[in-house]
């Protein structure tokens, strides 16, 4: 079981890093959303700092929405997914491996890139650690929950807008606690409570979401 997890993870990471362009696109999308936002306001320091948690997290949600559509599609199109379904290995483990690979290839980039962006917005440097931690705990949950939505819309070739309707309401807790932790860190309050809750959401996601993704894949491929 662990063997199939590592095998799928390795394969998906290998595929992702052979197409480095796509990885850069995710990063550029994230940077562009954050960089264009001040142009729509008066670019005053106080306003930007106040809205920066919402801005960073909305950018992450939008980027997740765009990238999630590719999570199962290539495997669906070339038939690999059907082979996964037929294999005796548990589909939930394969789904967890795929989401993990997806997160390493897209979510982790946001975590690494975030310090630069929040400093660009004028966020005080003492908050950067908490911001990175909140993204580190929050983005895998986005992948796990979003995986259910993508798996359900697998048979639809252009499911982008529908996918946003399916998964954005489910992202509300991550958005609230993620942005809440950032906000608390910026004004110098303890952020541990929100971070713990983000961790709890991640724990729930890791244990429950793979099964839901597996069930959704079975429904979509019926």
């Amino acid at each position, binding site marked *: 079981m662990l063997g199939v997890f590592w095998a799928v993870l390795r394969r998906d990471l290998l595929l992702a890093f052979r197409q480095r362009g796509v990885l850069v696109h995710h990063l550029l999308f994230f940077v562009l959303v954050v960089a264009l936002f001040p142009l729509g306001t008066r670019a005053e320091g106080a306003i930007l700092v106040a809205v920066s948690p919402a801005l960073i997290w909305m950018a992450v949600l939008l980027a997740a929405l765009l990238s999630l559509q590719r999570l199962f599609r290539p495997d669906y199109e070339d038939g690999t997914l059907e082979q996964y379904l037929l294999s005796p290995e548990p589909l939930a483990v394969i789904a967890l491996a795929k989401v993990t690979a997806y997160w390493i290839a897209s979510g982790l980039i946001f975590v690494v890139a975030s310090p630069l962006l929040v400093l660009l917005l004028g966020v005080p440097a003492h908050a950067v650690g908490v911001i990175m931690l909140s993204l580190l705990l929050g983005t895998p949950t986005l992948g796990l929950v979003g995986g259910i939505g993508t798996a*359900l819309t697998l048979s*639809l070739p252009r499911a982008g807008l*529908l996918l946003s309707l399916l998964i954005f309401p489910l992202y*509300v*807790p991550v958005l609230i606690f993620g942005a809440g932790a950032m906000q608390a860190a910026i004004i110098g309050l303890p952020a541990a409570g929100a971070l713990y809750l983000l961790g709890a959401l991640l724990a729930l996601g890791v244990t429950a979401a793979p099964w839901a993704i597996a*069930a959704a894949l079975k429904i979509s491929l019926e």
Partner: protein
Amino acid sequence: MAKSAFMRWFHRFGSLPYFYGVSVPIARALAVPGVLLAAWGVFAGLVLAPADYQQGDAFRIIYIHVPSAWLSMFGYTSMAVAGVVALVWRLKLAEIYIVAAAPIGASFTFLALATGSIWGKPMWGTWWVWDARLTSELILLFLYLGVIALHNAIESPRTAARACALLSVVGVINVPIIHYSVEWWNTLHQGPTITRFDRPAMDLDMLWPLLSAALGFTLIFGWLTLWGMRVQLLWRERRSRWVGRMLENSR
């Protein structure tokens, strides 16, 4: 023994032609008391109940608002229960229930939001506040719309209904998490008035019409959903023999 009788009933009720036949008397049994109770509740609430000492006559909107809000939550929970039944026992009726209940539940959710907003303008001085309960109700509306949109998007009715079943189960796990996270974020809505276990904080002349309206609207919800299920059933089984035979006979 009792279990086998129940299972026999379960299987018989799961048979689609049987369900289609008995749905007419069931729907009637829901509709008549439902309409009567709702009509009495709304009439008594709007006319007979005393005015509130603080809110005057404006409080009377609760006779629509509270039943709608209750049904918005009841509807989604019942869809999730049906979702589990549909996924575990592959009961077609449960799939059809989800598809039929979603638009009706969404309508009640919208009604709860709209009446709340109309009440909020004179009482809170604003149409909308980002309060915990209001926001969770709005998210609940989006969850309903997601189920409806997913059903409309997938062409095969069987796949669409099973996908909706899974989505409602995933959604219902998230509803309490969403609710508490939003509460953590912000709250302003008044605390619960009826669901407290000690004496209700409401005059009985005001409470009885409310309970009557809530029960009546719930029965109406069941009636409308049953009617929606009949339509779904006919459409899905339109190529089957029993539907053809029935249409022949009714001609």
